[in-house]
């Protein structure tokens, strides 16, 4: 286990120029395979991706394309078979378990498709858990937690348990939780998948606000075309490789609404 800060690495190719937006996540020839010999499955077959600081990027692709594997990689939840992941030019593979825990706690926020709230805790307690892991004193954690719940519009439900809340409310609590240690990166795994249209829209609004007001990089995986509308870039993944990366300006997306929705 290494002690002290890890020295940032110089990438082997051209360093970012001052005109470009800084890169916050970079993957180099990322490969992941499961199994051995003839039964090997290749989830990722060499992904070279860059994610820029402060952008809102959507990752799309059919099921089985390696999207979730890619997400696990850049979220420091899994390790690749080959290749490297550099978060702020720091090779994730070189980090010890403790450093990884720090990364997950304070630098990256996670939003899951199934909310993943802790069932026996109230909303406020759920939001303050990561702050406890970060060593924030309980009183300050509570205050920050309430502030975050206000941000997502749930300050009057702070004492409710997940079982007493709707899906949208739970997702909002999850978003508040993911923000509590002021992360640089938010990883959202199909945040609107289990929600109805109206609630999904609320969630998207919150995410966009976070991205614009706080400069948090958001990486979203989604099938929802309304999300494409709010993002900056879209990365298409197919068969374990990046098929193409498009900018929002270059796309024509028309999103309609259904009238009479509550």
């Amino acid at each position, binding site marked *: 286990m290494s002690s002290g800060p890890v020295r940032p690495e110089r990438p082997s190719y051209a360093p970012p120029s001052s005109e470009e937006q800084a890169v916050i996540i970079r993957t180099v020839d990322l490969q992941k395979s499961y199994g051995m010999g003839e039964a090997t499955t290749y989830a990722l077959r060499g992904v070279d991706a860059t994610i820029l600081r402060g952008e809102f990027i959507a990752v799309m692709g059919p099921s089985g394309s390696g999207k979730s594997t890619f997400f696990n990689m850049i979220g420091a*939840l899994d390790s690749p078979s080959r290749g490297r992941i550099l978060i*702020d030019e720091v090779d994730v593979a070189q980090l010890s*378990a403790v*450093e990884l*825990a720090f990364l*997950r706690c304070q630098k990256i926020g996670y939003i899951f498709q*199934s909310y993943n709230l802790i069932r*026996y805790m109230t909303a406020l307690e759920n939001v303050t858990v990561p702050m406890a892991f970060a060593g924030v004193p309980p009183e300050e954690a509570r205050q920050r937690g309430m502030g975050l719940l206000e941000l997502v519009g749930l300050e009057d439900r702070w004492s409710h348990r997940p079982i007493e809340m709707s899906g949208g409310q739970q997702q909002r609590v999850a978003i508040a939780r993911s923000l509590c*240690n002021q992360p640089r990166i938010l990883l959202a795994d199909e945040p609107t998948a289990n929600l109805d249209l109206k609630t999904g829209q609320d969630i998207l609004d919150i995410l966009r606000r976070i991205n614009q007001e706080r400069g948090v990089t958001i990486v979203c995986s989604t*099938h929802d075309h309304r999300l494409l509308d709010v993002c900056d870039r879209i990365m298409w993944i197919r068969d374990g490789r990046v098929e193409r990366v498009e900018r929002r300006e270059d796309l024509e997306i028309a999103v309609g609404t259904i009238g009479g929705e509550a």
Partner: protein
Amino acid sequence: MKPIVAQDQVRLGPGRCLQLALSGMAFRMFRSSVTISILALAVAFLVQMVTFGILSRETQLSAYGELSEQRRWGETVNRLTTADLRAIVLEELHRGSRQRLREYQRWSGLADAEFAAARRTAQSLNEHADYLQSLPPGAHAVLVGDLTSSELFDRLQQAAAFEAFSAQVANLSVRLPAGSTEDFGRLVQTDRPQLLETVDRIFEGHEQAIARLREIYPQRAPLQLAAAPPPDFAAALRQAGFELQDAALPDLGRCATRALDLERINRLVLNANVRAALAREADIPVSDVSFAAVVGYVDSVSRAEWLATTLRSVDPTLALNGPRVLELLEWSERERQLLDVVGEEAPAEHAGLFGMSARNQWLLLLSFLVCVVGVANAMLMSVTERFTEIATMKCLGAMDRFVMLMFVFEAVIQGAAGGAVGALLGVVLAVIRGLVEYGTLLGGAGTAIGEALVGVGLSVLVGMLLAAVAAVGPAWLAARLAPMEAMRVD
């Protein structure tokens, strides 16, 4: 914007971990109580076996003790009429009481030194007999065959047989307790015949003592003498050649009287008139009337009075009243129950772990293994149910050790709760089982309480350890593997 610099994560203390574990358990009360029940049953089983083993042993020991007293006095009276068999003399020379040995020395006419030598010979022979009989089967077949120890020693007195024997001993590399075969030869061929002569003299001396006693008290049987000892009875005994302390006379008298009275009752119950009366009174067929039936029927003072009157009508000399008859019958019944409890042999003082036989120890081990599997299963289920929760915790910054500690805490608390409940249950079950099996004879000295507490404490500890160990494995694995599971992007 500052770049990300990884630094060490804050480590949370166990107190916080415990807090989380407790709140988690409170929420999952039903699930926790299932696990606690499994643990409680496991611990209850262990505790029941241990406690019952102790209870059983203590009951048997105290029953044996009670019977021993009676047997001892019975034996004393018997010896006033019948001389000890030679085999018994040998046994007693080897490890008899001081009183018995004093008698033997008197009858043998040997001085202290010679008598001590005879005792040593007896002990040595006994040691060899034990050793030879416990040889491994191959050596045993060659050296001993199917002879008893005394038959073997008889054979070995002949030179030729002994030569062959020592040759075999050398062949098989058997080490005799005596050391060398020469020493053993001396023991068998010189010392043993002397010893047997001594035994003969003791036997004759005993018979002479009995004869002398009969001369002193020509018309009375020793049992009656013991029951109603004449003055100077103890002195007379000593004169005849027996050793009996004055202080022992009252106890002897009590036991002898009891034996005599019971004998009379037994005899009178066989009388036809008595049987008819009993059959009428107890409303049973005459053929069913026996001593056992009488014991069963006479359960109160009034019935005992009736029986006493009936018996006296046949034998007016019977000087027993109701209460005494009742006492005798109750004692007889108790003796029978004690014999049931004790069985044929004397219970060993410290029979195995917590008073359990080898078979029961084996059973305990097996059941323990089953419990381990059961608890491990419960813990595994508990962990896998919460896989997503663990993954989430790790995403929020928990470290492997923290997650594992949370589960271990939960397991230990459940183990303690289950252990406490189980211990209580186990003790109750053991007592119930003891009452069923031994009835009112159940009991033992309070000295066993300490051992029982140790046994119960150990079992509870085992329960807690079991739970903790069973939880660690799955929890550790889950903590290491989980994070990926949280992200299930379609």
